[in-house]
Structures are given as structure tokens and as C-alpha cells.
């Protein structure tokens, strides 16, 4: 058991928050995420499951099944494969899903596939800044999405 959890800085547009990684509950996914840092990509908003912001990871990223849930809660940071049709209206034939890193900022969110909930790896939790992020995300939804950056704190 670690006494000090690894923390990441999450920046979205004009605001930032802090993520605490679940190194004990999701060791493989937490390690994978650390290896991908820093991440800076265009942020997107879910159109099918509520209040989720996510970025698309590179296609070679392989996410293990670990610490999964279909009941995401506010502040959860998740990694999983999102159906490609939710991302782009057109995509190459060999992509049916894309690896993504996302986070949930509001109640009622339920990440799902085409016909059922999706199991998502819960790799961490937003432990501060959520009050700012939950304002910035809907602002970007109205005014346009910029990039999201994730780096070691």
C-alpha cells in the first residue's frame, strides 16, 4: 500500500485539476497512463453518455481489463475503448473502437456502447479542481473545444 499516491495535473482550456492515480487498484492501467505522459490532445465531449470529456489515444495503446465498472461516478478518470461511431461519423474500416482517456464531471453520466453499458477501467480520481472543470467543460461545449493536457504534477 502506497502512502502517497501519484498525482497528475489535468488542464482543460483555462482551468486545471489534480488527478490521484489508483496505483493499487489499477496498477497496469496506472503504469500505462504514466508511460503515455505527457498527453496533449484535442478534447472532445461525449454525445451518447452524458457529462464526459475525453481524448483519443494512439491506436497502438492497449488497455488491459482492470478495475472496471459500468457505474462511473463524478470525478472518475477512465480508460477504455469507445465505439468509433461515437467519435467520428466516418472512420477507416479497421477501426471499430478507439482507446480513449476520459473523465466524468457530472451526475447521471453512464458510459455506454452501442447497445449496453461499457466497462471502463477506473484509473484515478479528480481530487481537486472539479468545481472548475465542471464549468469549463460545458463552456467549451458551447464555445468550442480546445486541448486537454495531462502531465505529472
Amino acid at each position, binding site marked *: 500500500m502506497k502512502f502517497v499516491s501519484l498525482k497528475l495535473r489535468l488542464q482543460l482550456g483555462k482551468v486545471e485539476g489534480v488527478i490521484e492515480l489508483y496505483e493499487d487498484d489499477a496498477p497496469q492501467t496506472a503504469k500505462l497512463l504514466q508511460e503515455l505522459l505527457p498527453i496533449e490532445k484535442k478534447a*472532445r465531449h461525449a454525445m451518447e453518455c*452524458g457529462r464526459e470529456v475525453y481524448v483519443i489515444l494512439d491506436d497502438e495503446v492497449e488497455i488491459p481489463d482492470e478495475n472496471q465498472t459500468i457505474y462511473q461516478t463524478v470525478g472518475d478518470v477512465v480508460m477504455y475503448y469507445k465505439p468509433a461511431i461515437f467519435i467520428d461519423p466516418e472512420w477507416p474500416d479497421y477501426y471499430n473502437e478507439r482507446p480513449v482517456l476520459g473523465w466524468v464531471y457530472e*451526475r447521471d453520466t453512464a458510459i455506454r456502447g452501442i447497445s449496453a453499458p461499457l466497462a471502463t477501467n477506473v484509473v484515478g480520481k479528480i481530487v481537486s479542481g472539479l468545481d472548475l472543470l465542471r464549468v469549463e467543460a460545458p463552456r467549451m461545449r*458551447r464555445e*468550442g*473545444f480546445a486541448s486537454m493536457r495531462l502531465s505529472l504534477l
Partner: protein
Amino acid sequence: MARKIILDLEGETATATMLEKFAPLTCEAVWNILPVEGRAIHANWSGREIMLHLEGEKLLRIPSERRLRSHFVAPGDIVYYWRDAQLSRGKQLAYSSQFQRELSEFAIFYGDPCGEGLEADDPSRQLRQVSLTSHTKFASLDKPIPEGFLKKCEANRHEGLKRLVVSRFEK
């Protein structure tokens, strides 16, 4: 001759045919408030859908005209939707000022996926709250839907609100 409407989303247009046979009250009410304009926002529950909220004197309160047994919709469907102010009280904190009020809107489904199973997950659109909401499909976008209009709808997801004008289309 069926009535037609035209949707202009920041310069990209599409026409739609009103379904007066199935939804005469809704079609008449909608026709009478046209033109309607506002800033369309993209759905975040129901897939490829943009919404235009009806404001002020354009706000409509019309009961559902057909019994809805499912939330099935298809690309091209335009649905009138009304929601009582009571429905989402205390929820959706990020949108509290906007969403904790009565809502009347056009829901314009422009592509796959949309509808069954997805929209049904939106707590504020579930059918059990029948006295607090109404839905009526009243028009359908003429096919093929222009590519430019589709791309503009998709851009609405990433670029934010876009001006949408819905008018009578009379040649």
C-alpha cells in the same frame, strides 16, 4: 402538397417535409411560429442530434400526438420536445440556470447513431414521466441530406453553438 421547412445552419441548408398526416396539431403550431432562430447545441445523450430551444413567444406547449412506445428515431427525424420545469430540478448542476426551467425545442437527428437505447438513457427523456414531457416527430429531412449540412452539424459538437434558422420553405 406537403408543407416544407428549411434549416439554415450557418449557411449550410437542408429542407424537410412536414408530417401533417401524423402530427397535424404540431405541424400547424410549428408552421405558425416560423421563422425561428437561435443557437443550436449538440446533444450529449442521444447521439447525432442538434437541438434548437424555443424561447419567449416561440415557446410551444403541445401534447404528444402519437403514442410513443419506444424512443426509436432515425437520421433525418425532427422531433418537437417539451419538458416541464419540474422534471430536472436539482440535476445537471453544470447547466442549472438553463435546464431547471421549462424547455421546448426542436430535436434534429442528423446521423447514426441516434435514438433507441441512447436517448432512452437520458433521465429527463424517459417515458415514464409522461405527464412532464411530450414528444412528437413532425418532420423529416429530405434525403439525401446535404453533405455540407451534415458536416456543419458534426462541427457543432467540437466548435460550439451555431446559429440555426428554421423557416417556411415556399417556392
